[in-house]
């Protein structure tokens, strides 16, 4: 999982340097266009552009393929589901073990439309995820008036996620070395113990963190990152891109 989450983007890439608020708002605008689009060309165009952005950010193709594997598998399943179980206009049929299977033209079109929407939306979010540090995204959400309590919890979760993940890997390796997953029943017990140990660590760490933070002046609220003023050039370029894509969307 580290492999996925810690994939670095190029620091000197123009998209990495762009204000997180501008990136977030542009990505949300694109996402809205993709999910409200009734055609297949626009989402696929967005998928192509954002996939290219991910590659230009220095993301390895293997990481990109792994990231997209699950949503694309789901897209394929939806396509099959729509092809065979919805629609009225027969496109083809074949016999399988004495049963007649019918694929429908309208079902296929609907399935392709949903699959292209998934491809477009996933690449938009992947591009912003690769190009923006989590803390910058949270600061951008705070600027969008997302409640501070939510942002603070998200920042705590992000800060200690890797710590707990390392702990989980150590416990898992120790259990595995002691044949904790040798049979199904034992594996289940080991898994329960692992999850329980994580909860205990979460409790203990929260106490230690609070003590350390109180010593540094924590009073129940965390200071959030201050934003620099918007750069007119950044905003203008982002607006141009969004309006341009909006024009393509409307065609």
């Amino acid at each position: 999982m580290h492999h996925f989450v810690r994939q670095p983007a190029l620091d000197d890439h123009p998209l990495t340097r762009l204000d997180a608020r501008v990136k977030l708002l542009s990505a949300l605008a694109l996402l809205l266009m993709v999910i409200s689009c009734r055609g297949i060309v626009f989402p696929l165009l967005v998928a192509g552009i954002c996939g290219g952005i991910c590659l230009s950010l220095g993301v390895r193709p293997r990481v990109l393929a792994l990231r997209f594997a699950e949503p694309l598998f789901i897209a394929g399943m939806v396509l099959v589901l729509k092809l065979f179980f919805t629609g009225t206009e027969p496109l083809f049929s074949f016999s399988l073990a004495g049963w007649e299977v019918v694929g429908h033209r309208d079902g296929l079109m609907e399935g392709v439309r949903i699959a292209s929407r998934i491809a477009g939306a996933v690449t938009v979010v992947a591009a912003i995820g690769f190009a923006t540090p989590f803390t910058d995204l949270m600061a951008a959400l705070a600027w969008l008036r997302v409640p501070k309590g939510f942002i603070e919890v998200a920042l705590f979760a992000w800060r200690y996620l890797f710590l707990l993940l390392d702990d989980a890997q150590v416990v898992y390796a120790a259990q595995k070395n002691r044949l904790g997953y040798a049979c199904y029943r034992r594996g289940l017990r080991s898994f329960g113990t692992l999850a329980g140990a994580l909860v205990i660590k979460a409790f203990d760490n929260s106490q230690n963190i609070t003590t350390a933070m109180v010593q540094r002046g924590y009073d129940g609220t965390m200071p959030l990152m201050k934003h620099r003023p918007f750069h007119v050039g950044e905003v203008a370029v982002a607006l141009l891109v969004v309006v341009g894509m909006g024009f393509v969307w409307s065609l």
Partner: protein
Amino acid sequence: MQKILPIMLLFLTTPAHAMHISEGILPFSWAALWFAVAVPFVALGIKRLNDLAKDDLSFKPLVGLMAAVVFIISCMPVPVPTAGTCSHPCGTGIAAILVGPFVSVVITAVALLIQALFLAHGGLSTWGADIVSMGVVGSFAGWFTFRALRAMGASLGVAGFAAGLLADWATYATTSLVLAAGIRGDSPFLPLAGKIVLAFIPTQLPLGLLEGAMTAGMVMLLQRKRPELLVRMRVITEKELTAHA
């Protein structure tokens, strides 16, 4: 054949993170509706979080760390022998038992946001739908089951098992309905929903049992090793702790 094809499709199942509705799968109208449903629960969860954090400064860090635990648990592949594949537990049952259902919704929302942004599990456009199925329905199903069984005198293990089991199954039932409503187009809702439920059954039926066993294991481990934590989170009373000791 059209009826048994969903069952055949199941055997194509990969290590699926099917608990989450994938990015872009819902059209705008459905995505917006599920956001509207999720927002009041998240808002109430944040209010409850802020109220509790006023009395206990360590509560926000604890909730953050619980979100990290839920994130890790819901990324752990668990082998499902009947389907010959892997799936993953949701972890919201245990979160709801420990911190209550409303704060558990916030925990789930945070875990889902991180997964959507950095793992492509779920998505930003389906965040609302995922919060409703996994956070709201999963948390409340788990919490009510646990509390009801404890009120009837069930042991921590039995109540934990039932809470984990029902939280998982309720999440999947909701996911199926949300998915069917979102992708049905002009097709009738119920037959498609039935097929999606059918497609989830071989993986999720045993996974629910696994999640139940895992939740029971976690609660019993806490009772054995750190019972004072269960008292602090009001899962058991001081009296029960003394009786257990």
